[in-house]
């Protein structure tokens, strides 16, 4: 269908926002697959329905995931996308690149695939969009040679991601990028060979602003925080006020716990009232900074809707030192314990948060050897359906 017309898609070439249709068209002259993608997409636009078949199991040797199989349901019309699989490449921490690396990706993908990508997939991978079954292994082989590896898919650890952290942000309470890289490498087997009840996502943010949406989009969220009082440079505060900041309205009144007060000259912090929400720091980054005793909160259970409706991750460990020196042992130990329990107890397609809900936090906490503390909950139970352990009763 090399000469298909695409009047509907053409309408998406105009307007100020960069156009994905233009991108596909850029590849079309060189790549019949891109040409047919355009054609099939036009059909979708006409018919208001997708034309991809339910996935299929394809992959590369030694891996159980990292490739999403995809087949057209109208291959007779669009033979060049009859097979149009996605390869997920694991991005470098924080999505930083040198141009050499990016050009390598382009060159290899020009050779082996459609030349179309997502930078990035919404889990964080470099998404190489569309190639044939035959090309999968050679593509992987060459990427591997150039130092790239696959990301996750299926019931495995998914590609961890992190915010830019210490590389480009003054708020970061630990080295997000190093932790992300370290964990990704430590858990290559978990990442590449699906063997769990369902997917498991790790996301890492350097502070409670949570710029990678870890609390909403990962089963295991590592979010920077601190234990002591946030740091105040009074001179800096006065400077903001002098420059017109309405500190009462925009800072003091918006602190969720009323931890701050301003007497016209000094900003006072009631340290033990602060819940480290970042708001005052965000408004006055030149004057305020997180405290010095830094680490992270660990939250468990975040996920989207399927099956039991969306969960936001909840506090599992309020404060953990993030310790480069011991190779992040505490986090890895905790992950191992969680996976062991979940693997044993989770049902098929049950995210870890759902397993915890089904079996009760008490069982989970015992398994991962953590003491219950009030920080884990907004508030204690209201219903009296309390279980007792056999050893607690006569």
């Amino acid at each position: 269908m090399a000469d298909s017309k695409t009047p509907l898609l053409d309408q998406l070439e105009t307007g100020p926002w960069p156009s994905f249709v233009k991108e596909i068209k850029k590849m079309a002259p060189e790549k019949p697959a891109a040409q047919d993608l355009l054609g099939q997409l036009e059909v979708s636009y006409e018919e208001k329905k997708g034309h991809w078949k339910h996935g299929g199991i394809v992959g590369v040797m030694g891996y159980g995931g990292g490739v999403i199989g995809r087949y057209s349901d109208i291959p007779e019309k669009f033979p060049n996308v009859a097979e149009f699989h996605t390869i997920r490449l694991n991005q470098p921490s924080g999505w930083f690149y040198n141009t050499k690396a990016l050009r390598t990706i382009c060159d290899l993908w020009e050779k082996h695939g459609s030349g179309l990508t997502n930078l990035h997939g919404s889990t964080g991978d470099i998404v190489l969009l569309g190639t044939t079954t035959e090309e999968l292994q050679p593509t992987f082989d060459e990427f591997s040679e150039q130092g790239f590896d696959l990301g996750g898919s299926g019931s495995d650890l998914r590609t961890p991601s992190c915010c830019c952290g210490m590389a480009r942000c003054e708020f970061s309470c630990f080295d997000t990028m190093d932790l992300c890289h370290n964990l990704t490498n430590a858990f290559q087997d978990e990442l590449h060979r699906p063997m769990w009840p369902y997917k498991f996502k790790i996301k890492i943010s350097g502070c409670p602003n949570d710029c990678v949406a870890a609390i909403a989009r990962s089963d295991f969220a590592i979010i920077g925080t601190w234990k002591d009082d946030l740091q105040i440079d009074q001179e800096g505060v006065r400077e903001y006020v002098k420059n017109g900041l309405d500190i009462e309205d925009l800072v003091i009144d918006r602190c969720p716990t009323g931890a701050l007060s301003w007497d016209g000259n000094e900003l006072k912090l009631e340290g033990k009232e602060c819940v480290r929400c970042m708001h005052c720091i965000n408004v006055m980054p030149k004057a305020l900074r997180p405290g010095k005793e830094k680490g992270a909160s660990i939250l468990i259970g975040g996920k989207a809707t399927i099956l039991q409706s969306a969960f936001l991750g909840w506090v599992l460990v309020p404060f953990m030192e993030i310790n480069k020196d011991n190779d992040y042992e505490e986090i890895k130990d905790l992950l191992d314990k969680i996976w062991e329990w979940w693997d044993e107890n989770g049902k098929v397609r049950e995210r870890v948060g759902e397993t915890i809900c089904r079996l009760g936090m008490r069982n989970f906490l015992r398994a991962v050897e953590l003491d219950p503390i009030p920080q884990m909950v907004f508030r204690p139970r209201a219903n009296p359906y309390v279980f007792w352990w056999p050893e607690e009763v006569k």
Partner: protein
Amino acid sequence: MAKTDIGPPHYEQMLPPIIKENYGKWKYHEILKPGVLVHVSETGDKLYTVRVGSPRLVSIYFIRDLCDLADKYCDGYLRFTSRHNVEFLLSKEENVEPLIAELKEKGLPVGGTGNSISNMVHTQGWVHCHTPATDASGIVKSVMDELFEYFENMKLPAKLRISLACCLNMCGAVHCSDIAILGIHRKAPVVNHENLKSACEIPTVIASCPTAAIRPNPKLKSVEIKEERCMYCGNCYTMCPSIHIIDPENDAVSIWVGGKVSNARTAPMFSRLAIPYLPNNPPRWPEVVDAVKHLVEVYAANAKKGERMGEWIERIGWEKFFEISGLEFTDKHIDDFTHAVTTFRSTTQFKW
């Protein structure tokens, strides 16, 4: 044979010298203008960032163009953000304006910082997925074209994050966005009994249904769907290709509002249903674009400075939000899944 399990390239190779030298030493930042940040180090070094909108679905030519620019202005380094924007990292202030000029020339928008609408997190849609109820990239393009000014300036009360997912799997993680666009199916799937027999495991299919709408049909060695219990989540279809849910006549788009992720001021919040149904109208989905624009404008006109969409709505109350926005409130807005009762107004406190 290729090496396996080597992991991603090490990030250190990917960092420009100025970042390597000032790693962990950043002291503060400023937004110099929309799309342009400066981060100042304790050493006095300054790093300039120029943020650029991307369609995310890009060709290798696009990437090579970026590389050319980065080589020219940024010592050969750049990055992408968690919302799929491109960030050019400059150690030299004098390169900022020339870079921006060249970006403009190439039709690449600069913005997305501070109180703006940043790039839309989104998904595959008709481009690459098998379960979509709508397209992804096409709606994103249409919405961002219309809201373009909000990307390029920072005049909103606060950040406004728009996301899109083309089916209830929510790969766009729309469940906590200020405004979320979500593709929805609206009819119970159709079972191909002949295929199912061989293609799917019946107990797994039955277990896949959140509302227990599926029961075995032993006669046909297949399953049956109790239509009045089905809410079209598509999970059975994910588990079993013989159950077909796509239906162009009824597939549609819904709009959700008031979610947030950050812990700033308020705890993270889920997005909540604003508009249960808008038609799929490719290529530019005018109804969806209008609805989103309207919501942005209502928010912009009514929220206090610094207040996120959800914070504003929670302050005034959802009944006021429906009044001010003029949106219709229907029985679909009332939850009926597991935690429904926690959303019911169990107080006499409400506004008329």
